[in-house]
């Protein structure tokens, strides 16, 4: 049976509502209104009823960009609060699709006028992949007041219908467009040859996977890192330890949900997954696996080196609500940007990671560490 940590609220247990998700009830002092005048920084496409999906604008006079939240040192409650005030418009894509694409294309939020069928309803929705949203409302009419500010690279690549979505995402990224903007373009169906709106939660992981698979191929050609390095970083109770070992590309991730944490429940739960140059199937760690992999690939590409990578994510009860996989992406980026411990042996590196994580129960779950320990190299023999 699938465990809660693997499903993360997708409803795989068959219960009408996820018992963990329904723990969250927040109240906001905002009067539900049936109109909205203000800016729309982003769009949201639901996966419910796919392929007959619905979507709409995200409406808030504030940033929708997770790196901004971290730069401004927002606490978890401030982020939840901010998101609770956000309205997600909902409509058939034939009606609002064009406007949504304008919003997604724009580097800055666009001002909009939205009329809802009835006052917006409060239902704070959490989801393992996507950042939470508070209000939803069925859109009756939507007008764009401003026009999109479109970056040059975005303009060029979204106008090109002969470039596949994979190449388009990689080209945007190498032109310096950040993953959050690429995800917006992907979900609004602005990339690729046969364009379609993509449920936002799928687009997030699709972009993480596409970009890091592209980087992986580039990294494979670089020489290996010179020595073992151990990185660490933490955001909102998500502690990341990352060990880089000289060698060809291999990636292993181990996720530890402590006792009484979000998905952990009564007992600690540990999930492991790994890959070589190719990855088959969807990771049981879900979106977090791909988000962390992207952050590590970005680092390796920046130093033009290749490595065997072990990422350990330990989640404490401080992480009281799922904010989306951006937390793991940013936590890993933060880890990779911090000065590493280096020049240590593999055993010392594992020991160091155990100290950083504060537990050694994840070590037996690793299949890459025993492989690294037992595999001899050829220079050993002459």
């Amino acid at each position: 049976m699938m465990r809660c940590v693997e499903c993360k609220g997708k409803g795989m247990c068959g219960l009408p509502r996820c018992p963990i998700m329904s723990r969250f009830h927040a109240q906001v002092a905002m009067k539900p209104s049936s109109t909205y005048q203000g800016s729309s920084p982003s769009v949201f496409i639901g996966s419910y009823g796919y392929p007959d999906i619905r979507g709409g604008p995200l409406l808030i006079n504030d940033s929708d960009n997770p790196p901004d939240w971290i730069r401004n040192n927002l606490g978890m409650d401030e982020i939840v609060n901010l998101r609770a005030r956000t309205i997600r418009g909902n409509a058939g894509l034939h009606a609002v699709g064009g406007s949504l694409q304008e919003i997604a294309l724009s580097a800055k939020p666009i001002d909009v006028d939205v009329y809802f069928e009835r006052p917006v309803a409060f239902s704070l929705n959490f989801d393992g992949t996507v950042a939470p949203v508070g209000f939803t409302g069925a859109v009756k009419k939507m007008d764009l007041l401003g026009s999109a500010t479109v970056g040059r690279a975005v303009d060029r690549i979204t106008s090109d219908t002969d470039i596949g979505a994979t190449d388009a995402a990689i080209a945007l990224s190498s032109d310096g467009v950040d993953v959050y903007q690429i995800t917006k373009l992907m979900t609004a169906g602005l990339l690729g040859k046969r364009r379609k709106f993509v449920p936002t939660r799928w687009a997030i992981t699709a972009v993480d996977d596409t970009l890091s698979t592209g980087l992986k191929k580039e990294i494979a050609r670089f020489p290996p890192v010179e020595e073992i390095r151990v990185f660490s970083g933490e955001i909102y109770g998500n502690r990341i330890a990352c060990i880089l070992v000289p060698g060809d590309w291999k990636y292993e991730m181990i996720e530890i949900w402590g006792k009484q944490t979000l998905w952990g429940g009564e007992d600690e739960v540990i999930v492991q997954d790994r890959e070589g140059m190719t990855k088959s199937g969807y990771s049981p760690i879900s979106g977090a696996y791909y988000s962390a992999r992207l952050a590590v690939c970005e680092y390796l590409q920046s130093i033009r080196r290749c490595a065997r990578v072990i990422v350990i994510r330990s989640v404490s009860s401080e992480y009281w609500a799922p904010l989306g996989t951006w937390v793991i992406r940013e936590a890993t980026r933060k880890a990779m940007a911090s000065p590493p411990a280096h020049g240590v042996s593999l055993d010392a590196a594992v020991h160091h990671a155990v100290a950083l994580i504060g537990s050694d129960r994840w070590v037996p779950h690793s299949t890459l560490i025993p492989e690294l320990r037992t595999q001899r190299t050829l220079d050993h023999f002459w």
Partner: protein
Amino acid sequence: MLKATIDADIFKEAIDAISALIPECRLHTDDDGISTRAVDTANVAMIGLSLKKEAFDSYKASKSQLGIDISKMKNIFGMAGKGDLISLEMADNAQKMSVSVHGYNYSITLLDTNTIRKDPNPPTINLPGKIVIKGEDLNNALKAAAVISDKIALGINPKDQTFYLVAEGDTDHIRRDFSKDELVSLTPAEARSLFSLDYLKDMGKVMSKAAEVEIFLGIDHPVRFSFDIAGGNGHVEYLLAPRIEAD
């Protein structure tokens, strides 16, 4: 200088043998043919490959080194059909090589050979056990083991005169014994080493096409596979470092 034409299938076979381990390599050319020797990024596996000039339909070359992007070559030769000829042409000290296949003329930029790792020394390891086996049999045994585990022990039982493969998974176990009459030949000597199937799977695919593969084994020592390609006009050697069984 290089000017040669070769049957597409033969050249593909050689490229596939290299690409099982490394994405790029340094190719040496001289009067007698082409050759390469390289280790993978992790320093765990080595390939030595040579293709004699007899493997080519026509061949003329001076002594030189070419940096070849193997992955790119592999994609290019995907175009070639059965019986197609590939022609390779390069002037002295040129940065580009002309490749013609199936009516398509490519000009391929070569890699700077300074950016490719130095050629490793040829191996000088004494491996006492020797088995000669059909390539297909070997590949099938490796494929079967890969279902159960990520590592496999290869060994010789000198008493029973058998060659055995054993893989131990978390919950499952597989063993295949080849008796002397299932093998082409066997030189008995106590031997057993453990290897990563990650590497062996890719090598096995290449070796499955060889009529005979020579395997050299020792105790906790690398394994050496040696086999012919291109109808005997080419030769490949793989060397793979062992894993040391945990105590």
